[in-house]
């Protein structure tokens, strides 16, 4: 802990008293941290208590399935896993296309527990991985903020992070997704970076690369780290804050980190070949140039140095121009300019909606609305500016990093809702700093106003937390000339004391500064009433945040989305239709049957029903998805041909019209048309639109009323209530009575939410007829074949 050295150095007479106090402080903060961990874990259990211990949503089902495979078959099989149950007939190389961090983490936990003879199922481990890692993330936040502004701010930020709604939304029990462990990895990597920056220790630099490796394993969002840290390094260099500590914090990270990142199959050579990583290499070159310049400056006389500079700058510029030209040429030759679609949509928020409907069709890739900021980070939104100001008083290397982090993450969260998750830790850290600084000022001034407190006690009591960072930076500055003390890992306070004792000038300056600060503080003291009231207001603000977070955890974010519930007058009503359909598929169809559905349900179908799907949520092949989209938006006969060519036996559609479930396939239909039309031009979006709107009522276009999706959704729907009133679209449907000729209904769930149809087999040709029109069929069949060729992209 950083607190002890400052105060013991400042007030040596109270040495024994203070060690006791610090010991208590240490124990206290340990228990507070423990409780924060418990809080972070338990606030995420609402989903288990209110619903059940089950995997949520879509992507987690895939991760769960991969984890099951890993625990069953082992790590080597996992790396070589070619999954033939998805993307039929293409298949997918899972081992090489998945971020393995989460899977390996959960698999390791499971293996560890089972080798201790604790027979938890893989599902249980997966369900509770996210809450466990949120506890880790809040501890990492404590460490990070402690590096910036001391233990007090650290504890406050950790509490805030433990229950920030944005993070809860991605890490409730059952939400077994990459982000669950990635946020911990992100914060921990940043912590180790700042730790290295503050200590200049190569030990932490190595740990930092390992943490970065874990982050690369876990989430595609690692590019945020590998761009943010270079930005910070550049900022430090530009503002004249270059030091050997900065070099140690950065250079090993780039070298080791890139090497390690390239070990992850899904990243591989992307770590050196895509534009997302180029910034880090550029800064890597710059920092070496700067380091070299500093070195030369040290050994040359000022005059010689000037000459050398002019010489190097002219030659260097020429070389740089050549290199940059080559690079630009290389990058420009690739179609996406070396940037992946998702990253491009980060830089240009309108990119996705313009060019890639498949990215735009995912709701979490849309830009957020203002209320979602309030929903997701609540009062932190107001505390962040205060925290940024506190970071500037005074500005250290670490606090400038926090400022940069919050600024960039605010931008990214504005682009994609999903990246709100990256903003949340930054907002928690800055708000924690703001709150802790405010508490320091207010409690400090109350203490000054209260009679009967000696000034000495005031100094060390009031300042323990606020002083730390300053003392630390002071200390670091004091160490600067003394190179020998830098490389030593500063682990224990005891050692630090000794070191400080060795270092009398530092001690003296610290003492003098503490005294000066006490003076300053007396001047800054606020009136008693004002500080008491503002203290109360801050507590109320915190209480408001707690209430909101608990509400968000309990009500807004804990629904598993595969089972829906509504509360009506006659009690709780459960809609468990998805699992009903998947269970039916898994028990009553052949194990090798292929099921076609819109890609949203791909992961769930493979995981829960264990059936081969055509497309799934890993949207890697746009053409394949477009084929399914085309089939869904084609008339029955054409759709049958497409599905038949794909060996599909069952078609699954999700229909919410009976009970009013809004995210059904009819509402997603515009994306099927748009994505299908993007690849197969005979699907034209205007054919489905009336007055620029997708309609299914009597105003709908004939193309719409004859397409497969409409027919499969509304087949015999009119017989339920006689009117065929769609409760989602709030209208009566356009075409009520129709028959299916190429599909037959084989299963519909209890509330009609999932309907499964079977492709009818080819009809036997009637002999007599065939003979009669022999000459005719030959001509028509050839024309037909050419006709189907156009419609059917698989022939």
């Amino acid at each position: 802990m950083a607190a002890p050295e400052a105060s013991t150095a400042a007030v040596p007479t109270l040495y024994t008293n203070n060690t006791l106090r610090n010991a208590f402080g240490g124990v206290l903060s340990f228990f507070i941290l423990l409780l924060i961990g418990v809080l972070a874990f338990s606030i995420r259990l609402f989903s288990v208590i209110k619903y059940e211990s089950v995997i949520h949503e879509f992507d987690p089902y895939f991760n769960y399935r991969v984890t099951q495979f890993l625990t069953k078959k082992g790590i080597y099989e996992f790396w070589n896993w070619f999954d033939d149950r998805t993307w039929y007939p293409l298949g997918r190389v899972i081992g090489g296309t998945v971020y393995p961090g989460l899977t390996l983490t959960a698999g390791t936990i499971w293996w560890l527990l089972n080798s201790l003879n604790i027979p938890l199922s893989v599902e249980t481990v997966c369900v509770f991985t996210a809450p466990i890692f949120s506890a880790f993330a809040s501890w990492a936040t404590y460490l990070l903020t402690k590096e910036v502004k001391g233990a007090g701010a650290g504890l406050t930020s950790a509490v805030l992070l433990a229950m920030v709604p944005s993070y809860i939304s991605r890490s409730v029990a059952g939400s077994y997704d990459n982000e669950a462990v990635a946020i911990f990895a992100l914060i921990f990597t940043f912590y180790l970076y700042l730790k290295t920056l503050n200590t200049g220790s190569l030990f932490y630099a190595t740990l930092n690369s390992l943490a970065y490796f874990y982050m690369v394993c876990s989430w595609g969002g690692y590019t945020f780290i590998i761009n943010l840290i270079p930005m910070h390094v550049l900022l430090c260099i530009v503002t004249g804050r270059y030091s050997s500590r900065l070099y140690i914090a950065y250079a090993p990270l780039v070298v080791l980190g890139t090497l390690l990142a390239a070990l992850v199959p899904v990243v591989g050579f992307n770590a050196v070949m895509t534009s997302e990583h180029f910034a880090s290499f550029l800064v890597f070159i710059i920092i070496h140039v700067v380091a070299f310049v500093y070195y030369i400056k040290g050994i040359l006389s000022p005059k010689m140095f000037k000459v050398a500079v002019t010489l190097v700058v002219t030659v260097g510029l020429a070389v740089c121009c050549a290199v940059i030209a080559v690079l630009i040429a290389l990058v420009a030759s690739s179609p996406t300019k070396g940037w992946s679609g998702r990253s491009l949509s980060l830089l240009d928020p309108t990119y996705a909606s313009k060019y890639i409907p498949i990215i735009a069709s995912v709701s979490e890739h849309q830009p957020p609305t203002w209320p979602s900021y309030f929903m997701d980070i609540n009062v932190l939104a107001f505390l962040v500016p205060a925290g940024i100001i506190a970071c500037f008083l005074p500005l250290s290397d670490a606090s400038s990093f926090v400022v940069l982090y919050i600024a960039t993450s605010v931008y990214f969260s504005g682009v994609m809702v999903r990246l709100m998750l990256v903003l949340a830790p930054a907002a928690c850290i800055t708000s924690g700093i703001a709150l802790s600084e405010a508490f320091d000022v207010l409690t400090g001034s109350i203490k000054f106003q209260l009679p009967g407190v000696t000034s000495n006690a005031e100094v060390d009591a009031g300042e323990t937390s606020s002083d730390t960072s300053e003392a630390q930076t002071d200390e670091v500055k004091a160490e600067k000339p003394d190179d020998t003390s830098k490389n030593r890992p500063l682990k224990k306070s005891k050692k630090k004391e000794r070191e400080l004792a060795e270092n009398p000038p530092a001690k003296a300056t610290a003492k003098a500064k503490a005294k000066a600060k006490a003076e300053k503080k007396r001047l800054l003291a606020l009136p008693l009433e004002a500080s008491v009231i503002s203290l109360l207001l801050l507590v109320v603000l915190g209480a408001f945040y707690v209430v909101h977070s608990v509400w968000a955890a309990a009500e807004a974010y804990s629904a598993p989305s595969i089972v829906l519930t509504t509360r009506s007058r006659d009690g709780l009503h459960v809609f468990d239709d998805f699992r009903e359909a998947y269970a039916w598929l898994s028990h009553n169809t052949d194990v090798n049957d292929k099921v076609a559905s819109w890609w949203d349900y791909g992961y769930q179908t493979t995981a829960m029903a264990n059936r081969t799907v055509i497309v799934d949520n890993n949207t890697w092949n746009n053409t394949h998805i477009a084929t399914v989209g085309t089939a869904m938006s084609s008339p029955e006969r054409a759709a049958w041909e497409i599905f038949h060519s794909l060996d599909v036996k069952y078609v699954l559609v999700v229909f919410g019209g009976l009970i009013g479930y809004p995210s059904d396939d009819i509402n997603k239909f515009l994306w099927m048309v748009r994505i299908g039309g993007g690849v197969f031009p005979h699907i034209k979006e205007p054919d489905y639109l009336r007055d620029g709107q997708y309609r299914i009522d009597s105003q709908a276009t004939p193309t719409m009323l004859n397409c497969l999706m409409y027919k499969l959704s509304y087949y015999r729907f009119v017989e339920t209530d006689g009117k065929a009133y769609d409760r989602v679209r709030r209208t009566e449907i356009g075409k009520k009575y129709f028959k299916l000729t190429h599909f037959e209904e084989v299963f519909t769930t209890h509330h009609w939410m999932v309907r499964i149809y079977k492709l009818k087999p080819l009809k036997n040709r009637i002999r007599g007829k065939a003979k009669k029109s022999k000459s005719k069929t030959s001509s028509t069949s050839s024309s037909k074949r050419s006709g189907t060729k156009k419609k059917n992209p698989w022939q």
Partner: protein
Amino acid sequence: MDAPIRAREALGFILFSLLFSICRSSSLNHLLISNAERRIDLSSHIVKVYLTLKVENAGSTPTSEVFLSFPPTQVDHLATVEALVTKGKRKKTTLVRLDVKPTELPDAPNDAKYFTIYLANPLKSGESTTLEVLYLLTHSQEPFPAEIAQSESQLVYYRDSALILSPYHIKQQTTFIKTPSTKVESFTRVEPSNRAGTEIKYGPYEDHPPYSFSPILIHFENNSPFAVVEELVREVEISHWGNLQVTEQYTLVHAGARHKGVFSRVDFQSRPTLNGASSLRYLLARLPPRVHSVYYRDEIGNISSSHLRTDSRKSELEIEPRYPLFGGWKATFVIGYGLPLQDFLFETSDDRRYLNFTFGCPLLETVVDKLTVKVVLPEGSKDPSAVVPFPVEQHLETKYSYLDVVGRTVVVMEKKNLVPTHNSHFQVYYTFKPIFMLAEPLMLASAFFLFFVACVAYLHIDLSIRK
């Protein structure tokens, strides 16, 4: 329809008469059955046959063994055979259960299989006694047509003999067959036979020699769902901390006529009586009283459609599968519950403990093709032995559960073809020292202690090279 069947029956009759004359067993012929009445209940998919035999010893030596014979096709489906004898006179009659065991006879005609009833008191020459026999047949009703659509009802064949197959001479016999509804498509006529309401009567037939056989075929409507559990694994875990945890894994199948073509939810919901009449909508499980923490789930999570009713004598769990089961459809699920240990675990006088628990499947009106009962004894228990009222296959396994070191002994019992009458109690005896209960808490405590000691040691050791 009638004529060919009768021809076949006549053929069978001749065949059996011939056989009878060839292998006339000398050891059997001194008994004869003066009166036999058979009631066959076909109202569910489990065929219940009540046989009342009046046995007379016509020989000179007393005998205590009475043989029952079954055709080989029936023996495979025979789940249980029980025999009772009436004792006492007139009003004070009591029923006494008799031992029944399968027997091999060397000169069995046409592979007929035998069961021996061991009488409590040997039947002396000239005496007679009345035996009540109950046997149950599973998988004996064959759906015809084998595939039906959603709106059709389920028709089945039942094959048997109009005459009771017996190694003894039967003086007079009658057979009553009860069908679930009045809808009977056809039945083989063996005069005198007639049908009234839900009952078909064959007989009375007089004086038939041993091994008389007259095949009959009844084609009738049976819309009761054919609930068959293909495999059931029951695991009973004993914890001496006061809990008995039961986990039952079911693979359920509807073994009736296979569903064909379309399943329409509209029809199923709007006209439930006409549509899917034979579908399996819910099941009833009878659990012991004082059951707690009941769960009902499958591999993809909780199944929310179940109701538990408890009272002081029994608990009833009504479960609905995720979807209604039509013929040929399958479902798997798990039911688990906890029970207070003191209701099921007792101590013998010689310091051994024994578990007293029901063997069969708690679902009502269900056939279990294969049942595995696993009794997980607590860690450290010794000398396990199981006592089951009927023959089962047994072996021992070891299971590792929470923080086990040596593992728990598991007594595994397997049996095929079970019906609800198998729900009788079995006992597992073992010895256990209560000190083993403390092993795991002590282990945990010492692990934590060592961890703290390690922490303290680490904080007090200075490993740095430079001072």
